[in-house]
């Protein structure tokens, strides 16, 4: 039987959306890479390169919906962990930017994504443990 608890429903909806979006992301990513390696040129190359982006936008919307669907305490943890992740990413990326000025190798923008997701995950774990 499905739970009537709105928080459980919000979590289930988020999880289902996340799984579907990630499956779509992997499929679109492989398709995109295959087509790009096939030597596609012109404006189509740009469109094909951006193919994996829509599922990422779906995940972003799913996080916003999760924020609306959870209870006040869960929302607080979610917002605090996202704020921490944003702050950590800002400090790390700016710091590395200055190190690049000193000759450090230029990193791919992909690292920003990695730092955001990593710091969000770690912040969530620490905050949940703090309130236990």
């Amino acid at each position, binding site marked *: 039987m499905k739970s009537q608890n709105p928080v459980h429903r919000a979590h289930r909806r988020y999880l289902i959306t996340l799984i579907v979006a990630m499956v779509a992301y992997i499929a679109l990513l492989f398709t995109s890479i295959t087509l790009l390696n096939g030597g596609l040129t012109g404006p189509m190359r740009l469109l094909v390169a951006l193919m994996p982006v829509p599922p990422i936008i779906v995940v972003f919307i799913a996080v916003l919906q999760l924020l609306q669907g959870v209870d006040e*305490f869960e929302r607080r943890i979610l917002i605090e962990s996202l704020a921490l992740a944003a702050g950590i990413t800002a400090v790390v990326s700016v710091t590395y930017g200055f190190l690049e000025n000193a000759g450090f190798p230029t990193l791919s923008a992909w690292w920003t994504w990695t730092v955001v997701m990593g710091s969000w995950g770690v912040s969530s774990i620490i905050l949940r443990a703090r309130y*236990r």
Partner: protein
Amino acid sequence: MKNRLRVLRAELDISQAELADRIGVARQTIVAIEGEKYAPSLPLAFKLSRVFNLPVEQIFDPESAE
């Protein structure tokens, strides 16, 4: 914020999960309130008040509020 939630829940013989379902929150939220790590909003306090059929000030200790 100090409260009698754990005692009142034991008197009603309901689990944290059951209480969470009754007021539409996650069990983790009940854990945080019972552990006095989180002070609920007024609407949530009134939901708890209805479950235990007690005024809010008999569930939460207003003296302990910061």
